[in-house]
Structure formats: structure tokens, C-alpha cells
């Protein structure tokens, strides 16, 4: 489930754009650098230099990431196959673009995910605004294969790339009053046509209890399938909380605040009787529309049984000891 990315620090890996430009330079300077000499030395690629400004996960958005999608493993820890890259990136609930899951990929094509800043503040000792490139450089980017269970009773298995939220929170030092983490997405109706629809209370807001946020499973996501996060999946920074329904995993985050009161999410304000603050995957809590005891894994024909906490019971059940999960849905 959890895979460290290659031992080479990401900052040492040559960015694709830089790599390509070096290749070009090599070709141009071919007379000076004999290919035979290179082969004799066993050098197949130019050595990385300290001047390389960015690593692969730091690929600046302006140049599209054309690397082939790749993951370290073909299955999750339960042996379930990864959902194909094409499905993961073309079937998205991202209401800022459209309520139609198939429309998001094309509507998000020109989304500007770079430059990007995330403000981390509220009840913390060291509030700070991070550049997205800083976040990618500062925290080791690791691959984690998580199941994503949508409240609409479909699911995927996705190899995310990112870092635990706990690392970021530890850096800003939440103070004693902080009880919850409140996340906010970008508000930009020019880029997000769906935000022109006043039905929903934009911007998208989500929240976690502080201990949920500090759980090692809670991931800040910057990529998937070894590539920079596509806009349709919430570029450049989103959350992945695999034991909760998909809508809790807020996309295109610009603001993270530590707060004392339980935040009201967009879905709570849209329909509080259906979407609670916790929204843990729970087959025994029924929903007025979708059958929550079964789900369709994207790419599979028949339904499969849904798992308590989406199969992450061992890692998270302690968070909810003594709580009535039917009431706290």
C-alpha cells in the first residue's frame, strides 16, 4: 500500500523539461562529446547537476507532464488491481468544473495549477504560506495505493503520490486550542465554470478532526501514477482520506486552517441530512439514494461488498472508539 519512491531524493531527479533540453544540448554538442566515450564510461544519461532547479514531482505545470503513467505495484494491499489511468483521470466528481463526471477532463484542460500557494494558518504557532514547489521539495514524495470509495457507490484503486498531512501540520505547530482542520479550495469562477452556479456555497470546504488529520493515512496529494496531479483530479494539491467517502478528499486546496469549531463542509450546507461531517465509509449506515453496502469497482461488472472504513479499519478504528457512528455519519 505504501511505497517509498526511488531512494534518490526527488530533487536529484532531472525534470523532464530540463532532461529534454539537455538531450537537445547533447545532440547539438555531439562533436565535443563522443557517444562512444560516454558509452565506455557507462554514462547513459547526463549526471544530475546541482543547478537542476526542480525534480520530477516539481515539474512546473506550464509544461505538460508527458511521462507515461507508472506505479510501483499493480495491486493494493488487498490484491485489488489498480484502476486504469484513463479511468482515474476521465471520470471525476469535480463540481467546480461540472456536475457531469465525464465533462471534467476536457473542461479542466486549461486549468492553471501553477504557480500556486497554500496558506496554512489559524490556531498555529507558525503560520506560513507555502509555494506548491516548496511543498514538493520539502516533504518526501511517496507513492500510496489507496481505494477511493465515492458516496455514489462506485470505487477506484489509485496510486497517489504525496506526503502525509501530519508532516505539514507538525511544521506549523497547531496550538492547544486547535481541534479541527478546515480546508478550502480555490475560488475562481473564471477557471471553475461550476462556481457560477449559486446553488452550492462556494468555495468548496471540507474538514477533519485534528486526530484524523494527523493519522498517517491522511495524505496531501501532488500526483498520481507517478505523474503530476492532473487538473481533473484536483491539481496541484488535494487531500486523500481513504477511509472516508470521496467528497471528503477536497481538491485544489489553497487554504488550510486549524480551528476550534467543527467546520461546515459544502456538502453539509447543501444537504446536512445526507452528508455528515465524518462521512466515514460505513456499509451499515444507509443513504437515501445509494446502496452503501455494495459498490461497483470501476472496470468491474458485478458489485462487490463495501468494507467498513473502506478496508482501513485497523488503521482508523481507534479514532472513533465509543462514538455512535450512525448518529455521527
Amino acid at each position, binding site marked *: 500500500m505504501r511505497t517509498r519512491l526511488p531512494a534518490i531524493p526527488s530533487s536529484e531527479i532531472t525534470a523532464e523539461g530540463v532532461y529534454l533540453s539537455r538531450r537537445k544540448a547533447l545532440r547539438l554538442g555531439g562533436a565535443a562529446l563522443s557517444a562512444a566515450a560516454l558509452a565506455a564510461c557507462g554514462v547513459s544519461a547526463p549526471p544530475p547537476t546541482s543547478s537542476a532547479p526542480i525534480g520530477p514531482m516539481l515539474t512546473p505545470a506550464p509544461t505538460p507532464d508527458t511521462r507515461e503513467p507508472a506505479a510501483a505495484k499493480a495491486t493494493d494491499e488487498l490484491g485489488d488491481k489498480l*484502476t486504469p489511468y*484513463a*479511468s482515474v483521470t*476521465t*471520470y471525476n466528481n469535480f463540481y467546480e468544473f461540472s*456536475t457531469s*463526471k*465525464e465533462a471534467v477532463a476536457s473542461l479542466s484542460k486549461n486549468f492553471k495549477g501553477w504557480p500556486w500557494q497554500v496558506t496554512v494558518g489559524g490556531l498555529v504557532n507558525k503560520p506560513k504560506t507555502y509555494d506548491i514547489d516548496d511543498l514538493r521539495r520539502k516533504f518526501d514524495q511517496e507513492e500510496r495505493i489507496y481505494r477511493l470509495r465515492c458516496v*455514489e457507490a*462506485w470505487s477506484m484503486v489509485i496510486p497517489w503520490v504525496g506526503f502525509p498531512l501530519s508532516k505539514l501540520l507538525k511544521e506549523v505547530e497547531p496550538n492547544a486550542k486547535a481541534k479541527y482542520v478546515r480546508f478550502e479550495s480555490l475560488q475562481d469562477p473564471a477557471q471553475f465554470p461550476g462556481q457560477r452556479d449559486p*446553488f*452550492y456555497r462556494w468555495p468548496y470546504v471540507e474538514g477533519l478532526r485534528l486526530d484524523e488529520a494527523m493519522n498517517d493515512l491522511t495524505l496531501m496529494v501532488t500526483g498520481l501514477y507517478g505523474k503530476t496531479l492532473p487538473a481533473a483530479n484536483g491539481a496541484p494539491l488535494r487531500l486523500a482520506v481513504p477511509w472516508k467517502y470521496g467528497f471528503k478528499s477536497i481538491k485544489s486546496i489553497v487554504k488550510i486552517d486549524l480551528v476550534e469549531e467543527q467546520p461546515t463542509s459544502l*456538502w453539509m450546507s*447543501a*444537504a446536512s441530512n*445526507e452528508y455528515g461531517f465524518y462521512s466515514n465509509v460505513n456499509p451499515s449506515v*444507509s443513504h*437515501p*439514494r445509494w*446502496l452503501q*453496502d*455494495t459498490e*461497483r469497482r*470501476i*472496470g468491474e*461488472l*458485478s*458489485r462487490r461488498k463495501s468494507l467498513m472504513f473502506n478496508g482501513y479499519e485497523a488503521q482508523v478504528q481507534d479514532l472513533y472508539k465509543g462514538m455512535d457512528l450512525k448518529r455521527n455519519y
Partner: protein
Amino acid sequence: MPSLESNKTPSWPKQILAWIEAHPHLVTALFALAPLGFMLRDLAYDWLTANPIQELTFRTGKVGLVLLVGSLACSPLNAISGLRFALKIRRDLGLFGFLYISLHLLIFTALDLGLDVALIVSATSQKLFVLAGMASFALLIPLAITSTKGWQRRLGKRWKPLHKLVYLALPIAALHYVWLVKADIRTPLAYAAIIGLLLLARVPAVRGWMSSLRRRVETGLRGPAAGKQKQNPFPRYPPAKPGDISEKSIL
């Protein structure tokens, strides 16, 4: 006057309209089956999103609802515009609508729920939208069966009241739609409103008002003299040619 123009060839839009007029069932079949054609094409090319079963369920349900609402719109449309063509395609629209709703239910129970009886029962008992959908479909079954001329004759006077079940089936279908969407119920409510208006158009007073409105509009267009001469609120469409005696037989 038609007699003056009869030597001229009509313009091509008029020719097309005349052809459509002459082939109501074929035209309806072409339009009603086109979405099914697109679904089969998309199935063949794997264009039905990453969740094809859900996509097919949504599409068949939507087309079925549109066709059934279209069928419901036929007689008010005729009442307000005198468009007899609408009456000719009313049954066709209803039956094609029923075809799509049958596919809709088949995809849901067989493909989505895998014909798992326990799952179907629990879905129907737990989810109001499933219950409403099933109820609406159940009400449509006798209507589809008795839609033939033979059944119409056999049932005689009872046929009409039986087919008024559609006034119940469609509001329940709208409710099914309202209950199944996520939070934003504006689109289903729009369908519900249209169905509501079409049912309202069946109230005798509203129907009378629509006919009188049509008469007044026609009077305004043709002048009061023409209006006074008019007797039949549902004239033959297209108007009879001189010498055509069938107009008399209708009256």
C-alpha cells in the same frame, strides 16, 4: 388559395413537412430509436464513461422519461394548436418510452444488481427512489399491453379510464427522479413541473380555455368573419383541398 398554387411545386421545406405528415410512425420511430443507436455505438467504442452500467441506466431512464412526457404532451398540443399530427404519434411515443423504461429496469436489475434477488429486494425496500421507479413501471405495464387496437376494442369504454393510469405513473416517475439525484433537484423539478402543467391541461376548464384561446388567436389572424364561420375546433390538418370530401366525414 390552394387551388391557385396547385400547379407550382412546393418549396423543399414544405415537401419535407408534407413527408413527415404522411409518415408519422416512421418519423417517430427514427427519432425515438436514435438514442438507442447512439448507446449501441458508444457501447461498441467504449465511450460510455468509466462507469458504463450507470451511464446506460441514466441514459435509458432519461430518454424513456422524455418520450413518455412527449406522449403526455400530445393531446394538449393538439388542443392548443390543432396539430393533429401530435395525436397520431401519441401511442408511438408512449410505447417507445415504455421500451426505454423496460431497458432501464433491465439494466438496473440484471447488470447493476446482477439479478441478485436479495439485493433487488433490499434496494426496493430501502431506497424510496427505487420503489417509486418500480411502481411507475408497474403502472405502465397494463397500458403497454392494452395499447393495441384489438385491446382497445375489447375493453371498449373501460379502455380510456385504464389509460388514465399514466396520469399517476408519470408524477411517480418524476418523484423517482427527484429522489435519486444528489442535492441539486432543479432538473428533476423542471420535469415534474412540465408533467404538472400537462396534467393541468387535462382539467376540463383549462382545456376549454385552451381551445377558446386557440379560436381567438385564429380569429385574430383571419379576421372576425372567418372566426364566426368556424365550427370545428379541431379542423383537419392539413386543410382539405376543394373537392375532398373527407372533411365532411370527420364532422
